[in-house]
């Protein structure tokens, strides 16, 4: 079943494109420490709001343009004519622990200090936006996956139990679902965060966000899974399993789960964007990931300054573009997946 879905997906240009794009993004995230020229916290107060560095070719080798600050108050920089610094590839940079384990120094590219390469400019304290974008992706891209795993498990257990057993369990579960759905999600997010945050260190905020998002997201999935379980319950193979005396839990896992797998897959793909957006929103409001950590939402929060608006410092908005691209890719992929899994459900296409 999953193999068939995957094959179909790869044969559709849109689906294959999305898969490749997402694969690329996640690969960059995995190797962000190697790809990023600097640590996300590496400041240089002399170079605040530095514009993106121009790359020039000199003797067929890439060099970076050197800039000098013209006016510190309005963060204006001017390229120094003719002065360039060579870009060195696979050069040692600041030390880091690769995947938190292996100490390493090698970075994809570096320049001679005190010069700095800013592919996407620098922020208010001279930190490299490009590096922060890569490190932020670790949070922003992983949170959706972890959240969705917890949510779909919860949704399956609650929805499956409610649909299969019916009766009082069903009644209770569905009232609970209605209750969660009746509260605007961001209200609930913020209230939950207010209650939980005090019990965690700021560095553990990631865990808090995952918990909160999962507590909210399961309701919609549970409702639909319950409906599907209700119809599955009447099917001959389930009745047969019951007659043979299989335990309820086994029936849920062995017979319900495979039949719901395609729905779960589509629903998961289509709800990952919601998690990415919610994390970004929380961090943007200052309620999510805290400094010195970094995530795309937090970076956008720091871009919310009058100076940024009036001086047109567009590179500080790149995290927004990154969120946008990720979310749109997941949305398109989800729609293609749905077409593959259930051709009847197409949006009239």
């Amino acid at each position, binding site marked *: 079943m999953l193999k068939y879905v995957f094959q179909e997906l790869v044969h559709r240009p849109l689906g294959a494109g999305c898969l490749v794009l997402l694969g690329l993004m996640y690969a960059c995230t995995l190797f962000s420490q190697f790809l990023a020229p600097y640590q996300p916290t590496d400041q240089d107060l002399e170079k605040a709001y530095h514009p993106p560095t121009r790359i020039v070719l000199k003797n067929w080798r890439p060099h970076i343009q050197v800039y000098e600050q013209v006016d510190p108050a309005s963060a204006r920089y001017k390229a120094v004519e003719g002065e360039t610094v060579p870009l060195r590839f696979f050069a040692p940079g600041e030390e880091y622990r690769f995947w938190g384990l292996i100490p390493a120094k090698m970075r994809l590219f570096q320049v001679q200090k005190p010069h700095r390469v800013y592919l996407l400019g620098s922020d208010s304290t001279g930190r490299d936006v490009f590096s922060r974008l890569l490190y932020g992706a670790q949070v922003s891209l992983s949170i959706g996956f972890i959240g969705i795993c917890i949510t779909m498990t919860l949704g399956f257990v609650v929805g499956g139990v409610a649909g299969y057993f019916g009766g009082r369990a069903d009644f209770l579960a569905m009232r609970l679902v*209605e*209750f969660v*759905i*009746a*509260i*605007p*999600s*961001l*209200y609930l997010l*913020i*209230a*939950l965060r*207010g*209650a*939980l*945050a*005090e019990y965690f260190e700021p560095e553990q905020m990631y865990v808090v966000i995952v918990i909160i998002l999962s507590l909210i997201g399961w309701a919609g999935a549970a409702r639909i899974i319950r409906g599907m379980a209700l119809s599955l319950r009447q099917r001959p193979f389930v009745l047969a399993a019951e007659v043979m005396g299989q335990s309820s839990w086994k029936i849920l896992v062995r017979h319900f789960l495979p039949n719901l797998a395609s729905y779960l897959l589509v629903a998961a793909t289509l709800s990952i*964007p919601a998690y990415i*957006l919610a994390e*970004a*929103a929380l961090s*943007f*409001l*200052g309620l999510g990931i805290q400094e010195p950590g970094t995530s795309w939402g937090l970076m*956008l929060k720091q*871009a*919310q300054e*009058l100076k*940024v*608006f*009036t001086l*047109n410092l567009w590179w500080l*908005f790149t995290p*927004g573009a990154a*969120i*946008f691209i990720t*979310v*749109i890719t997941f*949305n*398109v992929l989800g729609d293609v997946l749905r077409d593959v899994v259930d051709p009847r459900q197409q*949006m*009239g296409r």
Partner: protein
Amino acid sequence: MLSFLIRRIAAAVPLLFGISVLVFLLMAIAPGDFLDVARTQQDIPEEYIERMEEEFALDQPWYARYASWLGNVVQGNFGESWIYRIPVADLLKQRIPATLVLSALSILFALCIAIPLGVLAAIFKDSIFDRLSSMFAYAALSIPEFFLALLAVMFAANTGLFPVGGLTSMDHEFMPFWSRMVDYAHHLVLPTLVLGMGSVASYMRIMRANFLDYIRADFVTTARAKGVGEGRVMFVHVLRNAINPLVSASGFILASLLSGSILVENVMNYPGLGQLIFEALMRQDEFVVVAAVLMGCIMLMLGNLIADLLLAWFDPRIRLDKN
């Protein structure tokens, strides 16, 4: 109709009760109590704090506090805000209309754009226009509201065409009535566009899908066979049927608007309920948080109720009183 209304309102009461208990519980779980912030402020007299402690039973466990809060609420007393030093009820009275206007305008804007776009996309299915509009829908659904709001503020700051934030200009108080209205409208343009953008896309997709369903329906073929003109078939026979699901989707869309308004109001400094909730939570103004969250939920429920009533009014096949 009346019995339907009564049933719906009766069903909403336990839900609201549950929500208030939940929010209250969440507030109780967080360390500290309602008065922690007030106690640290030197300009608040001690007698006042003691009186508040007594009034809201702060030295007792949370369920006792909840009971006393509930008793106060039933009498219309939502407590007092530390930030603004006015009763919470007054604060809500200022903020709720602002959010209501913004949400209503956003829905209206979304409908005005989405219905024609969706209809055209369905009629000219698979044309360039259809492709473009579906691309637009993907984009609008995927762009985070707060990012769009940031871009809008940037646009306003750079061009000066629209105000950067707020609901009124500085000299608003001194304007005659009509220029005051114009001033409001001028401030509302960008927030409405930003908040409504996602809804445009959702409405449009629903509209297109339904329209396509009904184009293939038997009664449409019948109408065509009778010799009814194509325009009349599309706009009278198909459109009137296809529009109903939009109404029932409005409840869901209102929920996302209320969530989105927290972000948009914050970025655009719009004095609505969302901004109030966020600000109150950050500064632990807890009476305000509980009351404002509750109000948001009531708004959502009312919105759903109105959507159901509208649907019954549009579609004579739906009988609310039955079953």
